[in-house]
């Protein structure tokens, strides 16, 4: 029997290896740390993310596949990995004080965050449906556990169970889609799928179409698009707040990474077939997210619906397609990561032990209790609503611009109307913060913000303003990351 060991270039997979090794290192060292020193696990985990980030910088402008064409490093994947690593870095920082406050500081938390990040990175780089599927599973399995990490909290348990059942159900559809594509192509490698579709084997196109539809269902769950969004509000509300921020940033972007890779790069020649479906999904996702968000009285739930709505805006970019469409989607996801994590950091800062203070009335009078937090929250909310001069405005501008250019004016009109609706519920919080007296409450002491949380607030504010005022540098980065593909 002839054994051909495939040539492997480990340099390409270095960021993933770093993240994985550190996750295991944390598991090994954590039992030996005394209760006061558990925080070292957190430090190890952000160090891992920083090293992986540096390793990732060195992969910029590389276009190479390894592991028998299963793992592809190109600027598209590298850009997404920057988003994931930046998101995980911020989440690790805000988790430290939160976990201490809730007295659930365990090292496993951080290794699960790293495992989840590893899964996302594999999703972005996977060039074979096997790798994409397995990456999705590492990410999801870790997230199911993280959502239930506050084990004594009923809401957290419920979030974990709902997330798990919905996620596993969605995985079933995803797998059925993959098997349909495998059946008609005879391979799960995206390269061969592209070849097969471009050579246009008319007989089995119906099947690829069905497979694509089922994949859309599977990924639709992960990116929280309507009608696969039922799990979002409960999971977002019940999960520990840093995990809510994490789920809404990284995994959503990772779902889009795989979705864009499969649909825009592989199913290009049957684009007309699925564009209409995604068009409807985008319109529904934006509208349902924004309209239901109006009725929410809990900020985490409101941000959950807003997160659904934002998935809709990114879907608009998917409908637009092409180089401008994808680069605007990348820019949008990057901007969304920072503004969303920033908003959640403020939400965490207002909480007390065992008392999250996530009701909207908890925000009334924040402007007088803690002016700086209120101003920062206003910046993030303005960015989420899409006001200039913030990142949210530029991101929406590019997405809608690319859609107009591709001739989807109708969808853009729906999107702009939705942005107007969203202004109401974002501004409502700003009004509460600055124009209402604080609700009389017993714990009116000063709000103390941990050092790491301050750091996160500074980074996110800087990023939101940077991308809003001088978007050119990051936008050209986003454009460079897709130019190699089109």
């Amino acid at each position, binding site marked *: 029997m002839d054994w051909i060991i495939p040539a492997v270039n480990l340099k390409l997979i270095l960021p993933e290896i770093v993240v994985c090794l550190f996750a295991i290192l944390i598991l090994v060292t954590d039992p030996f740390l005394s209760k006061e020193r558990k925080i070292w696990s957190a430090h190890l985990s952000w160090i891992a993310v920083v090293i992986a980030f540096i390793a990732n910088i060195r992969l910029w402008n590389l276009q190479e596949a390894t592991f028998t064409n299963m793992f592809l490093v190109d600027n598209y994947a590298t850009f997404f990995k920057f988003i994931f690593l930046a998101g995980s870095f911020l989440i690790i920082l805000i988790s430290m004080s939160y976990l201490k406050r809730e007295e659930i500081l365990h090292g496993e938390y951080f290794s699960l965050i790293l495992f989840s990040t590893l899964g996302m990175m594999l999703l972005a780089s996977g060039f074979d449906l096997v790798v994409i599927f397995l990456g999705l599973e590492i990410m999801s399995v870790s997230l199911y556990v993280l959502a239930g990490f506050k084990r004594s909290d009923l*809401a957290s348990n419920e979030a974990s169970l709902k997330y798990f059942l919905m996620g596993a*159900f969605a995985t079933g559809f995803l797998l059925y889609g993959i098997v349909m594509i495998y059946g008609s192509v*005879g391979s799960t490698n995206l390269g061969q799928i592209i070849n097969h579709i471009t050579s246009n084997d008319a007989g089995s196109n119906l099947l690829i179409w069905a497979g694509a539809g089922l994949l859309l269902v599977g990924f639709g769950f992960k990116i929280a698009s309507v009608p696969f969004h039922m799990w979002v509000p409960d999971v977002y509300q019940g999960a520990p707040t840093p995990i809510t921020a994490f789920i809404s940033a990284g995994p959503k972007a990772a779902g889009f990474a795989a979705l864009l890779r499969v649909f825009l790069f592989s199913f290009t020649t049957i684009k007309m077939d699925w564009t209409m479906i995604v068009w409807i999904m985008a319109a529904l996702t934006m509208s349902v997210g924004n309209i239901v968000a109006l009725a929410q009285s809990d900020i985490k739930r409101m941000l959950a619906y807003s997160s659904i709505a934002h998935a809709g805006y990114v879907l608009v970019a998917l409908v637009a397609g092409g180089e401008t469409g994808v680069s605007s989607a990348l820019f949008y996801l990057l901007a969304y990561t920072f503004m969303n994590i920033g908003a959640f950091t403020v939400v965490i800062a207002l909480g007390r032990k065992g008392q999250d203070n996530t009701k909207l009335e908890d925000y009334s009078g924040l402007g007088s209790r803690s002016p700086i937090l209120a101003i920062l929250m206003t910046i993030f909310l303005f960015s989420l609503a899409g006001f200039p001069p913030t990142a949210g405005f530029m991101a929406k501008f590019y997405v809608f611009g690319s859609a107009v250019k591709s001739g989807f004016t109708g969808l853009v009109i729906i999107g702009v109307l939705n942005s107007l609706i969203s202004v109401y519920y974002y501004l409502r919080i700003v009004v509460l913060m600055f124009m209402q007296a604080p609700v009389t409450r017993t714990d009116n002491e000063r709000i103390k913000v941990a050092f790491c949380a301050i750091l996160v607030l500074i980074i996110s504010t800087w990023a939101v303003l940077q991308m809003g005022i001088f978007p050119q540098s990051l936008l050209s980065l986003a454009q460079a990351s897709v130019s190699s593909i089109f």
Partner: protein
Amino acid sequence: MIGLNHFLTLSTILFCIGIFGVLTRRNAIGILMSIELMFNAVNINFVAFSRFVTPTALVGQIFAIFIITIAAAEATVGLAIVLLIYRNFKGINVDNINIMKW
């Protein structure tokens, strides 16, 4: 002669039974069982395609092994969550778990 379509039909029926179970079961373990039925349906498809479309490449069989492994991993996590919920809620019927409004 038993051909590819026989196996695909069987798999489709099993998949639909699984979906039905997920939609109608109230018990979390029952839902998990239905999801396992769906995974099995997918695996039948993979092995059947592997046998009839790429008989020498075995891609489908490898994929089936991965799916079985993942199913085991998911079941482990899922049942751990179920046990946790049971300890806290004293009941694992999904309908009872509703302290948050939809």
